[in-house]
């Protein structure tokens, strides 16, 4: 590695290893995922059954009891239990949607970026047309066809997510194609596929990972928005989105209803982002 000015104050992670923040992020994510997975073992309260006498109890430490550490909701259900059980649903939906959106988006982006102008134009205009429709309209239309179900929710989420991947990958591809060593590879007779795999894909990985981790958060929040519309997860099953929706009218007097799922989402986003950045550092060819 070349010499650096001595005044440099920033630290660089060593190549080949995940930085401490990324490890923290990964740990955080793992914690949330595991807690959600093992929810029935961790909390004994029923997340679905109402208890009218215990409505809107504040969290422990703010006047509540330790039996309900995060308080109870508008039907007296334990919020911690709902947070963990709801996590299973929200995380699973978000993960599946991100994967599908990412797969579709990356493929489209690669094809559009390396396939010549006609192909590029077709896909980009297709994206424009789809993006012109608000997510809500898409959601209503899909539910009308498929009915309210998690599948419909995933479909809507994936549809709303692929374009960001596609556009970013495409822009990256356009840039990289012009680089000298790539053009050199073309003249040497390398096939398109080989170019894509060896040169283009690794270079697009970094922004993809960053976007992927952002998208995860977007998906969870989008699920919340769609819950406002009554799509997918129906009450009384908990999901973070539904909890947010139910807590919306109580922000003035029982703010913990909406804040608890909000914090869970923040933790997941923080973890995903830190991990995503760490992975990017790990795979960044610029450091090699």
């Amino acid at each position, binding site marked *: 590695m070349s010499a650096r000015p001595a005044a440099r104050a920033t630290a660089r992670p060593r190549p080949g290893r995940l930085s401490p923040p990324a490890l923290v992020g990964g740990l955080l994510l793992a914690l949330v995922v595991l807690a959600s997975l093992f929810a029935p073992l961790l909390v004994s309260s029923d997340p679905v059954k*109402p208890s009218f006498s215990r*409505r809107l109890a504040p969290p422990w430490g703010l006047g509540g009891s330790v039996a309900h550490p995060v308080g109870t909701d508008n*039907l007296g259900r334990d919020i911690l239990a709902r947070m963990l059980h709801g996590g299973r649903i929200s995380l699973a939906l978000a993960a599946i949607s991100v994967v599908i959106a990412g797969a579709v988006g990356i493929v489209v982006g690669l094809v559009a970026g390396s396939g010549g102008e006609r192909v590029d134009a077709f896909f980009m205009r297709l994206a424009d047309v789809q993006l012109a429709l608000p997510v809500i309209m898409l959601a*209503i239309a899909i539910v009308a066809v498929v009915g309210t179900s998690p599948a419909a929710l995933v479909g809507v989420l994936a549809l709303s997510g692929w374009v960001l991947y596609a556009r970013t990958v495409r822009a990256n591809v356009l840039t990289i194609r012009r680089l000298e060593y790539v053009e050199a590879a073309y003249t040497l007779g390398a096939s398109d596929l080989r170019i894509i795999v060896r040169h283009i894909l690794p270079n697009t990985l970094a922004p993809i990972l960053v976007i992927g981790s952002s998208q995860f958060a977007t998906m969870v929040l989008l699920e919340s928005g769609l819950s406002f519309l009554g799509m997918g997860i129906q009450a009384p099953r908990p999901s973070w989105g539904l909890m947010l929706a139910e807590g*919306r009218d109580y922000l*003035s007097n029982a703010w913990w209803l909406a804040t608890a799922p909000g914090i869970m989402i923040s933790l997941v986003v923080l973890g995903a982002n830190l991990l995503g950045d760490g992975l990017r550092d790990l795979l960044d060819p610029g450091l090699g």
Partner: protein
Amino acid sequence: MREKIRASRSFGRRRFITLGASGLAALSLPRAVRAQAARSGELVAGLSERMLTLDPANHYSISATSVHRHVFDPLVDVTNDSKFVPALAESWRAVNNLTWRFNLRRNVSFHDGTPFNADSAVFTIRRVRDNTKLIKSFVYQDIESVEKDGDYAVVVTSKRPFGSLPAHLSMLGMLPASAGRNEDAFFQKPVGTGPFRFTSWTHGDNIVLAANPSYWKPGIPKVEKVTFRFVPELSTRAAALRAGEIHVIDRVTPDLVETLKGSRGVKVFDVPAVEAQRWIFQLAKEPVKDQRLRQAISLAIDRNVIIKDLLLGYGRPVDSPVPPGLVGHTTLPLKPYDPEKARQILKQAGYANVTLDFVLMKDLYPKQLEITQAVAAMLGEVGIKVNIKNLEIATAREMRSAGTYDMFFSGWAHMPHDPDWYFGQWFTRAGSEKLTRYNNPRVEQLIAEGRVPDPKVRQAKYEELERILWDEEPEIWPYYSVAIYGVSDRLRNFEPRGDYYVLLSDVGIA
């Protein structure tokens, strides 16, 4: 003493509330003069529902009715206890079962100076009947003729008895006959006889009204300017009230009451609403077609817990499908809570594993989802599984027409204050064909017989038909609603209404 109204157009800039110097000066004047001169200040109301039109004949919305009442006067007004009192009609009577006669008030003018008389009433009523594009039109299709009898009397005849006509007319603001020349232009700057004049309207955002200094009722209005803002988000509405930006808000939920009461400068009013909550059954569909299952469901629901714990006491037990105050209200034995009996009935009738779809129209009623989940839990206790479907309104209504639901969260706010429309829509064969598919010839006959003008006859017919409904249980009436309002303590003379109308013409501000 008349004050000149500044011809000021609002540019959307809210002027802050100021104590009118005229108000202070007026206190020293003789009383009669003082009443007219004591107009000062501005009111801002925050409504939850958007107003969509300025045409009184073209909507069935509570917020539009509230706003329009300030610009237009109807022939008949309705008080907070559902009694009909004179407005632009000084008196009215049923000449016979098919004919109503209205005697009109004299010396009333529209905001543009033209006089109000029988021509205006005839035009307004004929217009709503003949223009089938208008939303209120279908209600007036029974009207055969509308004729004036001199300049201050109108005679309306109908094909069938139309006992609820005065009630419907309480929601129909009178328009000048000249409006017919160019309706589009008219409704850009509408003119009525009401206590306020139209100033400006931004679609879906706010409407600004200015006092009418020559209103026919003395001492009214009490303020110079009224602005209605449409603020759909409950928390924002409440915040604006607490911050002093809005003086009255509607549709406050029970949970917010304590917070508002604890806020400086804010008071909370509540009043029994003219509304019975309703959960309808799809009567043509198995298994709720079976009256025994419906009875079991009714027994399994603890209405008192809903009123006490979920509505925090802001609800009242139902003793008849028609709320108190309206013709036809009666007292029937309260529906009991008896889950044990429910289980027995289910067992006897052979309903072991029932699953029902309970459909809601999203965001129609506050706390509806909460209450439905509670009901689902209660029904689960007796072995009935409930799938909740909280759908956007248009899709839900499609399901209702198609009949692909078992239970449906419907509600009915009696607008106008008369049960004839409710019965005619939901309990006649023709009316409920695309709804609940209810069919009982005896009930249908009673409804027809209850359409006559004589209130004593109507009361008798409705009581009999309600006893039948009470036994059949085609619907569940879990509670009567309570209307809660948040009000600035600077307001004087605000009357919280059970019909959800927000009326400010005789409200003053300190």
